[in-house]
């Protein structure tokens, strides 16, 4: 009370000090929140985590609903999904939604441009190897050849919203659907006012905007030889970052290592010399599809693809523990040398 009276006798001083104090307190309140809003759930056969720096529960739920919607729309294993319906009508034309037709076309386009390195029709082979049921086993050469006949160019055709499979062919959008769903979930977050968030969907990362304070997102890339470590980090803005790696799903039979990324030209696990490929691309579906295609193509052909079509950057790790980074990421990638990796030449 007395202090207040005295303060009143120094109005000029108070006019400076009080706002200054208020400003400091306000700044402290607006500092980046240490505990952003997080939502974790299981969908699309993986764990999904959404972290939003200025998000509300409603925004996160909207993003979750999007991912669950696309899981139900695209999962070949879910009765009632559009892909399930296409597969069950193999040999006949099936009308689907515009989105499903468009995503199949995107996958076919990457497949065509990559010389068949991405093929959504390898699904029966993926099942035969046990990568869906997790009952892994190496199929016979004859069985692989029989199933290979159901793949390749002409196995899938799209005309408008009508999809037709060659009789016996079955498809899966597993190589592209997560990236697409992450991209759509990001749109849902933006529509709900979120300007800084990150979506982790298995091996797929989708960032939204920037971190509080305008910093870029720092993404660590898993070390394919030691999944508890990383080969380095890449700093990115608003984009998708997707990795395909031999370490993600595999088994060993009679001492031989087999992983889940099949080469559509052989029907066997890809043997292109890379152990992981990370794609940075603003389009989530493209990033997802290209990570598989580039894994199968290997470094040289992937670089040719990039030179021809562009639109993405990549980080390759080969089986000699060498890391190759495309020019566009040279300044934003930082190698973790303690993991035994070095830049390749």
């Amino acid at each position, binding site marked *: 009370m007395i202090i207040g009276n005295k303060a009143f006798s120094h109005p000029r001083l108070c006019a400076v000090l009080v706002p200054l104090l208020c400003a400091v307190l306000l700044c402290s309140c607006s500092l980046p929140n240490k505990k952003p809003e997080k939502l974790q759930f299981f969908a699309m056969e993986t*764990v999904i*985590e959404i972290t939003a720096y200025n998000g509300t529960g409603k925004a996160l739920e909207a993003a979750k609903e999007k991912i669950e919607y696309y899981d139900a729309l695209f999962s070949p294993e879910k009765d009632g999904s559009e892909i399930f319906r296409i597969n069950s009508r193999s040999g006949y034309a099936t009308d689907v939604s515009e989105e499903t037709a468009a995503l199949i076309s995107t996958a076919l386009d990457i497949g065509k441009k990559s010389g068949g390195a991405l093929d959504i029709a390898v699904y029966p082979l993926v099942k035969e190897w046990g990568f869906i049921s997790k009952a892994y086993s190496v199929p016979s050469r004859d069985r692989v050849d029989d199933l290979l006949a159901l793949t390749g160019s002409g196995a899938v055709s799209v005309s408008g919203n009508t999809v037709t499979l060659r009789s016996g062919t079955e498809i899966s959008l597993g190589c592209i659907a997560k990236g697409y769903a992450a991209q759509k979930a990001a749109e849902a977050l933006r529509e709900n006012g979120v300007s800084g968030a990150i979506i982790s969907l298995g091996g797929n990362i989708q960032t939204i905007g920037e*971190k509080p304070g305008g910093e870029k997102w*720092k993404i*660590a890339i898993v070390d394919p030889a030691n999944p508890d*470590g990383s080969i380095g980090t890449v700093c990115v803005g608003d984009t998708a970052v997707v990795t395909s790696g031999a370490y993600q799903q595999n088994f060993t039979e009679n001492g031989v290592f087999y992983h889940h990324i099949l080469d559509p030209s052989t029907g066997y696990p890809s043997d292109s010399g890379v152990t992981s490929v990370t794609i940075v691309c603003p389009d989530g579906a493209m990033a997802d599809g290209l990570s598989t295609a580039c894994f199968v193509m290997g470094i040289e052909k992937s670089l040719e693809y990039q030179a021809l079509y562009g639109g993405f950057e990549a980080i390759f790790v080969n089986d000699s523990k060498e890391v190759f980074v495309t020019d566009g990421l040279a300044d934003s990638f930082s190698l973790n040398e303690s993991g035994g990796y070095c830049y390749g030449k």
Partner: protein
Amino acid sequence: MKVAVTAMANNKTVSSRSLIIIFSAVLVACVAAIFIMESFGGEGKRACIYVEGELEYEIELDKVAESYTIELPGNTVLVEKGQISMLEASCPDKLCVKQGCISSGAHSIACLPNRVMITIESAGNGVDAVVG
């Protein structure tokens, strides 16, 4: 308090210097508090165990003195100093058990059939997410 108030009342005026000192002290205290919160908030390696997307356990791994296990429906988690692993799982493929220990935020352990996820959040590594 009464003494202080009386003492102040006895001073006919509070000088500008006193006022500046009071405000400066409050200002310095605020800045120091913010700095301390920013610098030391959440330091250490914290394992988070989620079941069905709900955070069930938070463990400061660096502070674990003796190893122990946590029983979940379908899974047994082994907590050790600086690391954590899935010891047992009721699922058929047991990928989570085969994954072994994790000790950094670079990778997480997931048991998809039982909807269990273990992550490590390390303060100070500056990484926002892990891809792979």
